[in-house]
């Protein structure tokens, strides 16, 4: 027997108390949806988890009306201090129900339980705690005295970090005094609905947060609703473009957090073992379903072979499998469509002449799975070096000088994030200064903190989430 084939250590799902079907959360209550309901499935087994209501345009009208009513009658009249109390209460409830939320997230999304337990859910609580603190300090947000809230915010979030993206959207909106209609992705609505239960538990005034489940049509109806003052969207660049077009001239304030093709730059003086960890964390965290994933590895030529060799031996220890097993490092791909796209782009990578490598690993028969993959011999013109794959696929390119690294890193329509690995602080700062990306990590990758703003350059979107800057998206100055 091999010790490294650790015995199964599954997290129990007994803690979950799921209903067989979920309605829409409008005006503080669960109500039936007008559209045909759909099933949300576990991507690891393809088994259905629950029936989910589908909001039609009538539901969108009702939800926006509920949010408007709550804004006019209650939320905009509460003091910042009182809004903060609700947010603190939500944060504490998230912590209390952390295990349940983590299990639900891994079940519905396919991400490993160690990530939902140690990253997603703790960050969700941190986000609410952080913005709870801001609620009564908006005068100091840098927008002048007495900044005003916007009104009703329409928020549409993706499936890669379902609950975390919800927190990124809802926490600053509520702290700033807005009310919310939020649409989670149709692939991963579960934790948003559990979150609605938490709002009931927290006694949040009815209508302050409304949650509509449904697909693209629901989202379209929501962002185009005339009584919405603010649209916040995280997702693909193509949908982001559509939203930018449809909201143009409507007076709606817009923030977009879109795709990325981040460069992770490894210099020859980097702490190699930690850089390898950072590369792994950069692209295989959350199966690579991360908009800021370090999907382009730029390695200095003279250490290329060593880095790739170490990377390969490290990948051989990654454990792909049951997301609910506490030892799983890489979980299931979120959906059949996403899996098809990853497969297609990987095939293109091979056709274009890049060298494909994956560690030997047994993938489960049921569900959507893709082995961690690296491509070497990648050129900047290859599609796998240009397009966002949004999966566990790393493209390795080389560079010779810092100037070349900067040029290659910036040669992308995106500009969300980048990473730099070097033992030399001055070099890190000099390179960071020239990279066109919203977030730049030095000697680490994929680290998030509610106090740190996050957002993109170019086609990665505009507006910032997190930190003091994140408040500006939900406030207007009094001047």
């Amino acid at each position, binding site marked *: *027997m*091999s*010790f*490294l*084939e*650790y*015995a*199964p*250590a599954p997290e129990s799902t007994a803690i979950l108390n799921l209903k067989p079907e979920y309605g829409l959360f409008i005006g503080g209550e669960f109500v039936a949806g007008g559209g045909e309901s759909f099933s949300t499935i576990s991507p690891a087994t393809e088994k259905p988890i629950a029936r989910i209501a589908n909001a039609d345009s009538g539901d969108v009208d009702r939800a926006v009306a509920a949010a408007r009513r709550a804004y006019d009658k209650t939320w905009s009249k509460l003091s910042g201090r009182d809004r903060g109390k609700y947010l603190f209460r939500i944060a504490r409830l998230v912590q209390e129900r952390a295990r349940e939320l983590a299990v639900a997230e891994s079940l519905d999304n396919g991400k490993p339980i*160690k990530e939902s337990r*140690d990253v997603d859910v703790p960050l969700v609580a941190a986000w609410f705690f952080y913005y709870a603190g801001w609620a009564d300090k908006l005068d100091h947000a840098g927008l002048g005295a007495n900044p005003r809230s916007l009104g009703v915010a329409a928020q549409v979030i993706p499936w890669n970090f379902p609950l975390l993206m919800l927190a990124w959207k809802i926490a600053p909106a509520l702290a700033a005094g807005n009310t919310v209609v939020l649409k989670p992705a149709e692939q991963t609505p579960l934790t948003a609905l559990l979150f609605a239960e938490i709002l009931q538990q927290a006694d949040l005034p009815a209508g302050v947060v409304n949650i509509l489940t449904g697909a693209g049509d629901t989202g379209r109806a929501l962002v185009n609703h005339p009584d919405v003052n603010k649209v916040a969207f995280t997702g693909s660049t193509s949908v982001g473009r559509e939203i930018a077009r449809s909201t143009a001239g409507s007076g709606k304030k817009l923030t977009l957090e879109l795709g990325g093709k981040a460069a992770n730059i490894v210099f020859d*003086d*980097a*702490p*190699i*073992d*930690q*850089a390898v*960890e*950072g590369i792994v964390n950069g692209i295989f965290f959350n199966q690579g379903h991360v908009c800021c994933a370090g999907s382009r590895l730029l390695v200095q030529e003279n250490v290329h072979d060593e880095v790739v060799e170490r990377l390969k031996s490290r990948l051989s*220890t990654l454990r792909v499998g049951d997301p609910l097993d*506490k*030892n799983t490092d890489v979980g299931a791909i979120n959906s059949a469509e996403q899996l098809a796209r990853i497969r297609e782009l990987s095939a293109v990578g091979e056709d274009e002449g890049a060298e494909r490598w994956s560690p030997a690993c047994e993938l489960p028969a049921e569900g959507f799975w893709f082995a961690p993959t690296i491509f070497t011999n990648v050129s900047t013109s290859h599609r796998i070096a240009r397009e966002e794959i949004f999966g566990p696929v790393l493209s390795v390119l080389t560079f010779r000088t810092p100037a070349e690294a900067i040029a290659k890193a910036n040669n992308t329509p995106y500009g969300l994030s980048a990473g730099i690995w070097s*033992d030399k602080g001055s070099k890190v700062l000099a390179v960071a200064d020239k990279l066109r990306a919203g977030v730049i990590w030095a*000697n*680490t990758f994929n680290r998030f903190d509610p106090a740190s703003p996050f957002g993109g350059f170019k086609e990665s979107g505009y507006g910032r989430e997190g930190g003091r800057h994140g408040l500006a998206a939900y406030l207007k100055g009094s001047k």
Partner: protein
Amino acid sequence: MTIENAVRPAERAVQLLGDDLTETTLKRYLEGLPGVDAVGLEQRAAGLGSRSIKTTSKAWALDKIIELIDLTTLEGADTPGKVRSLVAKALVPDASDLSTPRVAAVCVYGDMVPYAVEALGSAHAAGTDQGINVAAVATAFPSGRASLAVKLADTADAVAAGADEIDMVIDRGAFLSGRYGLVFDQIVAVKEACRRADGTYAHLKVILETGELNTYDNVRRASWLSILAGGDFIKTSTGKVAPAATLPVTLLMLEVVRDWHLLTGEKVGVKPAGGIRSSKDAIKYLVTVAETAGEEWLQPHLFRFGASSLLNDVLLQRQKLSTGHYSGADYVTID
């Protein structure tokens, strides 16, 4: 640096750095090693520490931990009786379950070696892979503050008395002030003092005392230095200085032996010592070994735990696995 006097043990350094081995080339080599990012290293160690080892894996791990223990007593108050009692415990760790494996070695001060050898009798491994080895700390353990002549005499004495393994300490003062050549020469000389009359060598474990080296960069340099000078094992600590063994330091040392193996094909052992008291902690080390150097390192000639109280916790956990309930401290023997 007296490389011209160095004998067989300096072979590794000569092969890697060339015949003109001088203090300068050694220093350049050690200072040219890639740096260690402390945050990243500790994060990785924490990640390895969060592995969940259950059921059959746990049972295997508990037995493996026992097989890798250097059961240790290093007190000024040690007596021959205490050493005999320790040896008895090493031979039969759990009187209520004779299927319990034996530990790898007993580790004592040099003057206690004859009593340990005598108490082991036919169970003394004496360099074979059957039985229990006797390890002796030497070279003015734990401070290492004595002249080289005294350190060598200390070592030779323990080897003559039948010690199979010598745990030496490096001169941290010399290392921290950059006199790598001096540290190198001393390790080479001690290794030579481990030579027995028949030409074989007692195994040499080099204690870095990482708690006094302060930075991970220093730990990495000291690890390479010790391997280049001929150490068979690199060991974290004496147990007399806090912090003793930590998971990040052990991870770093395992990365060095893994790299040495990639470079030369030769396998060097690692021994974390001091501060590992619970089975839970020890299992984290097993995971770290298996996922860093590889599972083949989980053998007594490549990995050891320097510990005393750890054994009893492992025995309690072992009893819990077989009976389904926890017993208590009175159901395992004190040594």
